[in-house]
């Protein structure tokens, strides 16, 4: 996979932790540049699925292909290359609080640099790169925070930093994990709009996991419903009706407390 946008294919992919299956026999095809949402209750396997797609998790059985490359057979070097083109926005953001925003964004590029190159980028960032980071921060709406210490930012602003870091990777795909779970409704809509816009502008494939059904239906053109690690539906949002969602979220009591990994 070179730059441009990434396609994904899962063939009977399973992930098991011991005897527990987090993802079971999932078949999935995502075209380059598509915008897709994974929906379902907590513990349905959404995060596990994203981790399969970004190559940090290998399927226990089955296949994961990114841009035609079978992750199972890639040597470590190539695997790192693939990962460096997938921008994950982690649910906990995974920023370094005691660094400035600039550095936290610059860190996104390390996957494609040597050790020496990354030290140079972080400690003596060239003007061009600082300007690029500033552009990205402007794009996500916090340009003035470039030199702020990250732990001085609000939760919403920190999330913008995490998005900017993923974009600085020049990703072929963006995978936000529950991007709006800790935001109020107005900011949620704002963030969803932003994610979709930046992906459409750059032709980036977008796969977001969401448990907020309303937001998913409003913004994402294709939804994959997951429950108990299995795909319940996979259709354009316009073809889904309330019954589909009702079935997805109608939990049996013993499922309520099962939060999954």
């Amino acid at each position, binding site marked *: 996979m070179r730059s441009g946008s990434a396609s994904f294919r899962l063939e009977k992919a399973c992930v098991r932790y011991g005897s527990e299956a987090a993802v079971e026999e999932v078949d999935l095809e995502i075209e380059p540049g598509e915008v897709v949402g994974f929906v379902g209750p907590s513990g349905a396997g959404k995060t596990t699925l994203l981790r399969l797609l*970004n*190559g*940090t*998790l*290998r399927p226990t059985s089955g296949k994961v292909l990114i841009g035609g490359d079978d992750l199972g057979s890639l*040597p*470590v070097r190539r*695997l*790192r*290359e*693939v*990962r*460096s*083109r*997938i*921008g*994950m926005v*982690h649910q*906990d*953001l*995974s*920023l*370094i609080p*005691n*660094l400035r925003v600039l550095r936290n964004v610059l*860190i*996104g590029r*390390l*996957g*494609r*640099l040597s*050790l020496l190159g*990354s*030290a140079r980028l*972080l400690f003596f960032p060239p003007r061009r790169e600082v300007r690029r980071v500033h552009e990205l921060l402007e794009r996500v709406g916090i340009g003035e925070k470039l030199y702020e210490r990250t732990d001085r930012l609000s939760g919403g602003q920190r999330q913008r930093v995490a998005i900017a870091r993923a974009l600085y*990777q020049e990703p072929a795909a963006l995978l936000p994990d529950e991007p709006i779970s800790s935001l109020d409704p107005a900011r949620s809509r704002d963030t969803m709009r932003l994610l979709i816009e930046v992906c459409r502008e750059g032709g980036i494939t977008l796969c977001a996991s969401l448990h907020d059904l309303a937001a998913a239906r409003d913004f994402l053109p294709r939804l994959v419903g997951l429950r108990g690690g299995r795909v319940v539906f996979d259709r354009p949002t316009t073809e889904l009706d309330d019954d589909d969602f009702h079935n997805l979220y109608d939990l049996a009591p013993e499922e309520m407390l099962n939060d999954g990994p």
Partner: protein
Amino acid sequence: MAPEPGAVPGRRWSGHRGLVLVVIVAAGLWAGFELDLDPRDLLPGEGGWAIARELFAHALSPALDYEDEVPEGTRPLLLKALEAARLTVIFAAAAISLSVVFGVLLGFAASTAWWIGDPAGGHGAGTVARRSVRPLIYGVARVVITLMRSVHELIWAVLLLAAFGLSQLSAVIAIAIPYSGTLAKVFSEMLDEAPRDSALALRAAGASPAQVFLFGLLPRALPDMTAYAFYRFECALRSSAVLGFFGYPTLGYFIAASFENLHYGEVWTYLYTLFVLVALADWWSGALRRRLVG
């Protein structure tokens, strides 16, 4: 057996806490009896009273000049105290600099945090070799650290002085050995306890193991590590002063000499100098900590 619905779950007897407390108290009492500790021993004898009274009488009036005749050309007392303080700082600084270098290296080896950088998460070529080498490095580092730490700097000083004589380097190394060990132990724990989310995110974005450790994990632990190194510097000041008892011209040397000559005012002058030194170091490291960790 399922509890009745609505019943408050029974608090299970966790056992250990109470037992540990009883054992600790019992051990303390037993040690006291074994040593025949008697509070009356704190009352000094006849001569002791006089010395104690005189020593503490001088606490409020430290000497500003020598209490006895001194030869022409001797430096004024306060300058001498300053010079002793300067040397105390220099010995401590040399020792702590050496300790930080070895502390970082050993601390890294004795931590398991850097194992997470493994890009394939335990798959792929070379994994078996890596997996068997790592515990070996870890084990050796732990043993070395324990050996260094288990001997106090004063005992190292006795050994090194016997071997190399009263050289500056012996004093620095005597402090640096146990300090390297302590720094290494604490550094390794700080590295292992640092939040790993940013390191894992870096790995997910294709970073190499060295990048993951250096740029994802180390920055999370660095503020604490720096603050702790400063605290150890403060401890090194005291150790460096005490090494004066072996003849190094640090504050301890002059404290001992003045005490033997019954110049109690001078003793307090040097003690207060040490106090100010430690207080300054404390203030400095506190200010730094607030900025780093804050």
